[in-house]
């Protein structure tokens, strides 16, 4: 190996280590400061890129510099999928519960039962999660959509059928309707679950 070859080989080694260690893409002028004087950084980068082609880690040009990136085809193998389950917002949970108990039910009816307006986005979220679905139209003026729960709903809540839901009267006492305010609201988790 000639002197020039040896110098170029060293520059190639340095380039690989430097790009590996750098926290941002390495620009040719930055590389020039690390490799032996007189060696063309672009020639080194080109050679390095050729050397890495087809390897698990490739040299790519990003943002005006060069950086190593793992080959795209390996992404599925090395990526760890972490499940980050979502929590339903209170409004969505209440809407879902009302649909479960009153199905088939229209949106105005849900609003009446909850005593609050229902945003389309809440209904959309429940639809997207596959927990509710449309069950035709109600034959009244305006023909509003009727909503009901899906088999996915039963699965999510571990129910064999809708009959397994406790009766409404067991959740909200009948005389609660007559009282302006619940005298002793049941603490969470102490609801009668039969």
């Amino acid at each position, binding site marked *: 190996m000639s002197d020039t070859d040896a110098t170029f080989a060293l520059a190639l080694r340095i380039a690989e280590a430097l790009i590996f260690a750098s926290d*941002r893409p390495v620009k040719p002028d930055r590389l020039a400061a690390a490799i032996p004087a007189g060696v063309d950084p672009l020639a080194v980068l080109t050679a390095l890129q050729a050397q890495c082609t087809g390897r698990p880690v490739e040299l790519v040009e990003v943002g005006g510099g060069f950086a190593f990136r793992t080959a795209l085809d390996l992404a599925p193998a090395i990526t760890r999928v*972490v499940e980050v389950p979502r929590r339903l917002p209170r409004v969505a949970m209440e809407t879902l519960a009302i649909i479960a108990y009153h199905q088939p039910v229209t949106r105005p009816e849900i609003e009446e039962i909850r*005593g609050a307006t229902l945003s389309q986005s809440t209904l959309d979220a429940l639809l997207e999660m596959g927990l509710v679905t449309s069950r035709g139209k109600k034959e009244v003026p305006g023909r509003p959509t009727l909503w009901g729960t899906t088999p996915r709903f039963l699965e999510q809540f571990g129910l064999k059928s809708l009959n397994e839901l406790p009766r409404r009267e067991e959740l909200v006492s009948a005389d609660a309707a007559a009282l302006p305010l619940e005298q002793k609201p049941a603490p969470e988790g102490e609801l009668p679950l039969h």
Partner: protein
Amino acid sequence: MSDSAPAITALTIRLDGFEGPLDLLLDLARSQKVDIRQISIIKLVDQYVAVLEGARKIRLELAAEWLVMAAWLTWLKSRLLLPEELEPEEDPELLAERLTERLAELDRMRNAAFWLSGQLQLGRDTFARGEPENLRQEDRSGLVADLPALLRAYAAARRRAIAAKPYRPKTRRLFSVAEALERLRALLGATPGWTVLQSYLPESLATPLERKAALASGLIAALEEAKGGRVELRQDALFGPLMIRLAETPA
């Protein structure tokens, strides 16, 4: 006693290198090869004073710590010289041993620090990947929701809706046209001649509003009957009383 101690030569100490009395004592013990049980108090004090002279100019709290150490060493030395008549826990032999052990441990730890410094260090001798890639992919399709939460949500929504139902006052019962008509038909035949319309209205009406409404209903009922020709109406003056009677000749 002091004769048996190794001669202490001129003190050359890097002042800024010392962190405390133990540090200094360890260095003294090392460089002078002294046994603290054999040390000459006079010479030790001389050395401390020399160090303190310099240290005072640097850090007062260090000088103070060294002074404490010097005093403690002197006390220890005097105890070693005195006959044994002390409490067990104040046993100077034990205290001297403990100091020796502390010095040994500090020595070990300083050597450990030295050893660590000599290791290949990340960011100095070797480098790690500067720009690691994110290998975590979040799957947000899952849902945290169980049956108790669903039931709680239903109960909470219902309870809140019930509690929030707006207050509705008792519906005001107003005298309807149909009622006025019925009353008019029932009562009119019993009174011959012209009668004030008001006399056919119920007397139990409490509020002025109810009375006005009843009068309006009564008027409409009377007009309706008049149209059918069953009654006659007349008003003698503008805003005067409305008079009513059965029609003379039924249509």
